[in-house]
């Protein structure tokens, strides 16, 4: 499974040798600027960002993945949930399975399938979908190839049919009985909202709405926009969530319940926001639009 290992290496900062790898894969050569823009500012290639309860690096999601390494008897690397690391580990398990005598192949096939369904397919297809919309051309081509390989693996590898633990244990975003959520925090937590809202998306929202975009991290920028035109911001976000739900739904063919989970979460977000579109919208939606 050298292909996945090489694709993982291309998720690392470009290096003089990156061109050689890209040529072997017949992919465009990404530049350092493209790498920085995509992976440092737009789409962070860490599972914990998409699967964690807080939408941030680390936490329980990363611990779960580190635990997977330990269960394999391997010390977890410093960043066990980085996409490159996960693809490399998958390639490693596939190689072990291929080299094992037939009667022992299952020893490696089971963890390989678990890694695929629990820690890769639970978020990477959603991540790659987003990349297709916003990524620079070199990485769009790369992402297409990653997706192609993963889809083939999804068809080839056994699947229990149950949701990955990361998704099963994700708390609901809009629990009517619970305390009123911080909407902006929830929106920026993919596993809760079902959305990946990048910096580019926030900028696009500002352009679409004709409001000022304050430089800063996404939550800060959204707060600033909410203080200018809360009603239209909520409507924009609701529409964005609806589109995301539709995009997720289209993955159902090969992701099954995983795609359904993401689509359901995004649809719930859209519904929640739609219900909040009466005055004062931000307050109803739980957005504190006072100056951050």
């Amino acid at each position, binding site marked *: 499974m*050298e292909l996945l290992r*090489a694709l*993982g290496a291309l998720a690392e*900062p470009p290096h003089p040798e990156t061109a050689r790898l890209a040529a*072997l894969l017949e992919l465009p050569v990404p530049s350092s600027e493209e790498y920085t823009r995509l992976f440092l500012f737009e789409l962070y290639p860490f599972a914990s960002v998409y699967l964690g309860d807080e939408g941030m690096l680390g936490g329980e999601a990363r611990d779960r993945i580190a635990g997977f390494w330990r269960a394999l008897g391997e010390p977890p*690397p410093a960043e066990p949930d980085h996409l*490159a690391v996960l693809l490399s580990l998958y390639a490693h398990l596939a190689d072990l399975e291929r080299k094992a005598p037939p009667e022992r192949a299952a020893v490696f096939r089971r963890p390989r399938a678990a890694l695929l369904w629990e820690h890769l397919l639970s978020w990477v297809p959603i991540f790659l979908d987003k990349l297709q919309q916003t990524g620079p051309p070199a990485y769009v081509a790369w992402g297409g190839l990653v997706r192609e390989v993963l889809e*083939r693996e999804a068809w080839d590898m056994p699947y229990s049919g149950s949701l990955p633990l990361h998704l099963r244990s994700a708390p609901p975003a809009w629990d009517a009985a619970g305390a009123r959520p911080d909407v902006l925090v929830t929106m920026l937590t993919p596993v809760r909202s079902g959305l990946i809202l990048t910096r580019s998306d926030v900028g696009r929202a500002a352009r679409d709405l004709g409001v000022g975009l304050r430089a800063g991290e996404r939550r800060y920028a959204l707060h600033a926009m909410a203080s200018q035109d809360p009603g239209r911001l909520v409507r924009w976000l609701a529409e964005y969530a609806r589109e995301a739900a539709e995009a997720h739904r289209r993955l159902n063919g090969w992701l099954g319940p995983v795609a359904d989970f993401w689509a359901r979460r995004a649809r719930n977000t859209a519904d929640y926001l739609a219900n909040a579109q009466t005055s004062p919208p931000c307050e109803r939606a739980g957005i504190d639009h006072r100056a951050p």
Partner: protein
Amino acid sequence: MTLDELNRRLSAARAATEARGETFYPGPSRIHLAAYPPKERWDHWVELDSRAWPERREHRYMLVPTTCFNCESACGLLAYVDQATHQVRKFEGNPEHPGSRGRNCAKGPATINQVTDPDRILYPLKRAGARGEGSWVQVSWEEALSDIARRIGRAIAENRHNEVMYHVGRPGEDGFTERILAAWGVDGHNSHTNVCSSGGRAGYQYWMGYDRPSPDHANARVILLVSAHLETGHYFNPHAQRVIDAKQNGAKLIVFDTRLSNTATHADHWVSSYPGSEAAILLAVANYLIQHNLYNREFVRRWFNWQEYLEAERSDLVPTFENFERALKDRYRSYTFDFAARESGVDAETIAEIARVVSTAGTRLSTHNWRSAAAGNEGGWQVSRSLFFLNALMGAVAVPGGTYPNAWNKFVPRPIYTPPHPPRWNELTWPLEYPLAMNELSFLLPHFLKDGRGRIDVYFTRVYNPVWTNPDGFSWIEVLTDEQLVGLHVALTPTWNETAYFADYVLPMGHSSERHDLHSYETHDAQWIGFRQPVLRAARVRMNQPVRDTREVNPGEVWEENEFWMDLTWRIDPDGQLGIRKYVESKKAPGEKLTVDEYYAYAFEHSVPGLPERASAEGLTPLQYMRRYGAFEIERTIGPIYAQEVPPDDLQDIGEDHLGRVYTRAPKDPSPNVVPQPSPDPDAEGRRAVGVRIDGKILRGFPTPSGRLEFYSRTLARWGWTECTVPTYLPSHVHPDKLEDGQMPLISTFRLPVHIHTRSANAKWLDEIAHTNPLWIHPVDAARVGVRTAQLVRVETEIGYFVVKAWVTEGIRPGVVACSHHMGRWKVGDNGQRQLMATVALQQRGSTWDLARRTNVEPYPSTDPDTGRIWWTDAGVHQNMTFPVHPDPISGQHCWHQAVRVRRAEPDDAYGDISVDTEKARIVYQQWLQKTRPAHRYSPDRTRRPFWLLRPLKPPKEHFRLPEPVTR
């Protein structure tokens, strides 16, 4: 192209790349730990100059490996040699090094500070005035070498071999200089070991023959450190990274440390015990395992010398294993948790919890003690002995996650020459009073000289600083300034130190990138060698510019020791008449002096299994391979050698004693690995010990008299120490019962993580990080003394006092104070290192010495603009000078802990003041001498020392006989 075709194409490309010895996935990468330049690019590595940003200015480097010399871990470094200037610009880790794996502590990269230190010694110096006066003239190497060689040659010719002495700090190499001394026929090796690790060593030695532990931390389930090994100590960097590996896998970490050290903060269980009580706790843990039958019964049955114990001490019992188990329970029953709690001040439940954790380890229990409590206390050697007792009970010996004997994880290639050990005995280093001492009684040398036991004609101090490092430094000054006692003092050192001021010659030696050395250490369960080399020399060779003498590339006239010793040896015996020259003579070109290239090429070609093949696969000679990569792993996962069957060829006309020790007449195979080995006595018919019969099979066993793990030591019994034949708790000299009113223990053995004794004061980055050593004192004690943080206190020892700042902290036990020994560097005149040495005045009034600070550290102009930016003024306080000698009567270890009184400083006291009465130091020396059981009274066989014990230079057996008559 289909996915499968892409996959095949990539696999083929990777296979082709790696077949060329290159890296397919270059770093930095999370996947392949390649945050290092790929090795195929080490000849031409390009980096941008960070200071030139935003301009993209390229630096072209050649990366040359060497080995760090700033402690004894021998971690790998990569020197970045600038191709434009031919100078080293920086040091980083060497990813090819099996021990350090590319990771270094702060001291490694700081080597660049030492290389560029504006205060370093660049030329040979000879004193101009009286010794210690501080006047020097530059001399040529020729003059210095001729003078020294003439003097040594005369001593040898006049049969005064014992007047030549070489006193070494951390050797940083494996046996080169010992072989030089052997070539001279001189029993003049003197080490620092008895101020360092003799206590730790003795405890291990009485168990397994070998005197060092090699814990396999990475694979452990429970790690027990009686040390601060995540931050300092021997092999701490290689060990610390493996401790963390284990912790990431869920291992539990238990740390014994009276202080809340950085290591203690990472522990799952921190034990802050009263100093000296550690063995009591460990034996309470052992007792728990024993009383609850939680030990590895089968391992104990097979490997303990329980039968010998029963015969010697329980002859009332039929010698069965079941009876031994009963005897074991009887023997340790009194070591209850409550007993340990009373001794240690740690509550019984905490000790019980530790015992429970240890009991869950199975054979994956890695333990470590080296200095710490073993070096602090009288009887401290029982700490490491009691610690290893836990390994032995659990069967966690030389198995994954357990603790190995060091020699199995170490490889010392047989060199081109191995001269026989000297045919004489030096009583200045191996006195009759200490027949069981692990190493030379080095720190007693001033007292022995004052006693009139001998004199020294030529005394080398080599990267060693006894005036500052050893206890009782003023006694050293008294001796070193007496030319009747020390005829010629030659200091071999890369940088100024307190002892070099009292030398006749100061000869500049290289730092880690300026010298050759070869070594191997027990960092994990593997055998590897690391090669230190002058990197500029290696770089020149890569550029096809041969170098014949390392001085051609080193700064100034800085030399390296290998070439120095070979040259000096040649000069001592220029015509070969003394039989010495042959040991430094070329084999390729007889009649010519051996070169370092030939010396190392021989070892790498003939004595390192697998290296020639590996080198050949890359089209290199073994020497070229080592110059390129700096390290080679010979074998990984050595395993329990003791359990291997002795091959039939080694069993000829065997004899066997009633305890199963097996002896053979088969000659010993000359192993390429000449790692020091204990040598158990032969049987009565002269057969050598070869193994031990266990359950009918002859296994290799351990190099102990019994061939087994020695729960019971017949050596200790026969040499008069019948009260400690088995692991026992010996109350320390700072036990509460032995303290006078107002006294409390001072812990002085801990290090500052970024410094290393006298080697790092010239590293500005390290100086900036750490430059003070306040007295740790608990708030309760501070209130009693009436002192707050930063206020001055006077700490009174048996022979004087020092004045230091207080640091009031709950990180130390109430009733105990602590002060790190890494600070307090001083110089008496202009010569010296200015970044971390205060300038002081020394004053002598009879036997009373005073040291007072004249100026603190301050900025100064130099070739390095950073010296003008020095913002710190402190250099710490030198406490060791106020400590009298405390030689442990068994191990010979200086017992560092002090019984002190702490009170507020007097109005006239100043920070850093030291006052000592060396007459009092003499009295304390004599008091401790009374504790010994000398060979001439206790030897069971009219020898000076048990022959089987390790000794760096080991005279032939006939020289072990006691002299007649003994007058002392």
